[in-house]
């Protein structure tokens, strides 16, 4: 196969959708500041593990209880809809193989959902130290009976910080299965749009 002089060219990637506009499955986002950490013992058993409880306490208010923390938030419409895309690699068996015999694969992005609302929690969490315990037998309180989850947030000057990094995206980053993180030459901005560092 000594004919590799030319780099394998990739074909255009189509956004495909097998659902119509009206019937695109709606996904939801629950967004909170910080990172939810799990007790080390449970890190391997995440599947089906309960994170916390969301309660809609009033028309406009939602609370999210994680471990000993309670966050308050609301349901907000997305300013622009988010499409949920799945990267699919297919064998390139189309009859326009005259354009690209050296590349056997074709990549597609399938639209598998749309997000129009999210439940956003951006307040500082309230500590629930005296949270009433459910009526549960107390006989076997193992030493690891504390909350499984705790919320870790980054505080600067007393206010919780949202950091947003924008970067250009190279096509090969999009194609790889790795986490899309874009270039290093991004720009950072704090919650109020000011540069963080």
């Amino acid at each position, binding site marked *: 196969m000594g004919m590799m002089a030319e780099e394998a*060219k990739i074909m255009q*990637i189509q956004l495909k959708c097998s659902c119509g506009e009206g019937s695109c499955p709606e996904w939801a986002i629950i967004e*909170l500041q910080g990172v939810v950490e799990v007790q080390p013992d449970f890190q391997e058993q995440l599947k089906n593990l309960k994170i916390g409880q969301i309660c809609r306490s009033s028309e406009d208010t939602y609370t999210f209880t994680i471990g000993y923390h309670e966050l308050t938030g609301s349901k907000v419409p997305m300013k622009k809809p988010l499409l949920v895309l799945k990267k699919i690699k297919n064998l390139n068996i189309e009859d326009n193989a005259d354009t690209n015999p050296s590349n056997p694969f074709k990549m597609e992005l399938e639209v598998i959902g749309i997000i129009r609302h999210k439940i956003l929690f951006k307040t500082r969490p309230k500590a629930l130290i005296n949270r009433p315990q459910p009526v549960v037998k107390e006989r076997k309180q193992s030493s690891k009976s504390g909350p499984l989850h705790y919320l870790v947030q980054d505080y600067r000057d007393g206010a919780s910080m949202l950091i947003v990094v924008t970067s250009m995206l190279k096509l090969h980053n999009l194609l790889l299965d790795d986490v899309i993180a874009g270039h290093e030459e991004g720009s950072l901005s704090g919650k109020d749009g000011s540069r963080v560092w």
Partner: protein
Amino acid sequence: MEMEKHLNCSRGGAESVLGLKPSSSLSIAYHPEYGPHNDIVLLELDEKLLPDVFNQRVFIRGQPDDDAVLCTQSKTYAVKFVGTSNSVCLVPPSNQSGMRRKLQDHEENGCDLESASVIKLAPGSMEIVEIAPRLDKLKSLLSQAPYGIEDASEMEVEGLGRDEKGLYKWGDLVNEIQASDEELKSGLQSLSAFEIDGYWRLLDETYMDMILKMLLHNCVLLDWTLNALDEDEVLGVLESDGFPRKVAHHCLSVYGDKLQEGGCKPFWKLNDKRVSVHFARSVLREAEGNMKMERFLDEWRRKVPIGMETSLEILEGEILTEKIGIEIWIRAFRASSLPSAAADRFSILFKERPRWDWKDLQPYIRDLNIPGVSLEGLLLKYTRRVQSSSHEEPVFTAR
């Protein structure tokens, strides 16, 4: 009871979250298939682009080292990735195929907790911003193999063994050029490219000159009216002169305008300006550099058919003039050969001349197209404006 920790079911999904009623609550758990799912990404799109997506009319174009670009039928967008430090938990709808849990299991385990599951934490999402189409590459690709005499003569001998290097079909261009279909078509048109045997080609300039000259020669010889050329007759004669019909037709469309056809016979009128500009270009090409204005005008007028205009006004964006001593000199400087990116464009312009009068500069920047930025904005960003007094014309220099 371990029910508090592990849920035996994950029946609920997005609809449980979005439809949560006041004074109700919902457990949130990790989905049984929770994981990085790097094959799932989020893309933010304006509502008005959604019909294009659902009609399969949106593509991501480019080669691996290019910046990712998204194209609809008519517009081009750069794709950025916006990462966030927030935890963005994605909750799929409960009946998502491929992520479905057997409902039977749930019922058997006596699961009746209202719950919803998080399948993935999204590190961020992709956003798009409209950009000008990246068409510079189009000219360089098509210039690899311009259509000339050799191609015309072997036209009838199409074989499979033909060397296809440097030749591009529409499908190839779409993979290489980061522009929407409409913008690509428009780019091909402004390059006067044409399609033959499925390939998009640029006509070699000398060959084009040959065809045009033959056409004008025939007009005189056969007493054709320049204002009403019979397409069939013209193409027929040119074909017998050795020019393939398709190529001759292309020449007509580049230098002529089709007359509104009342009947079924297509008629063409030669476009004086385009013919005139063509000959100006060929005079300058033969001179290979600077020419004295007098000599240029002389040779130009000799080539152009009688009656067609030969004033310098029509050469806007084609030539630059310079006074050296008492002589005026002229040289070719074509707007169409300049890069389309603003920064590069101004850089080349100021290399050519450090100072520009507005009337000279304008033809070289009026086609700059940066969505969201006006021409004034571009001038502010890339030039310094100098005006010695209010009744003098402003002059522009590099910033």
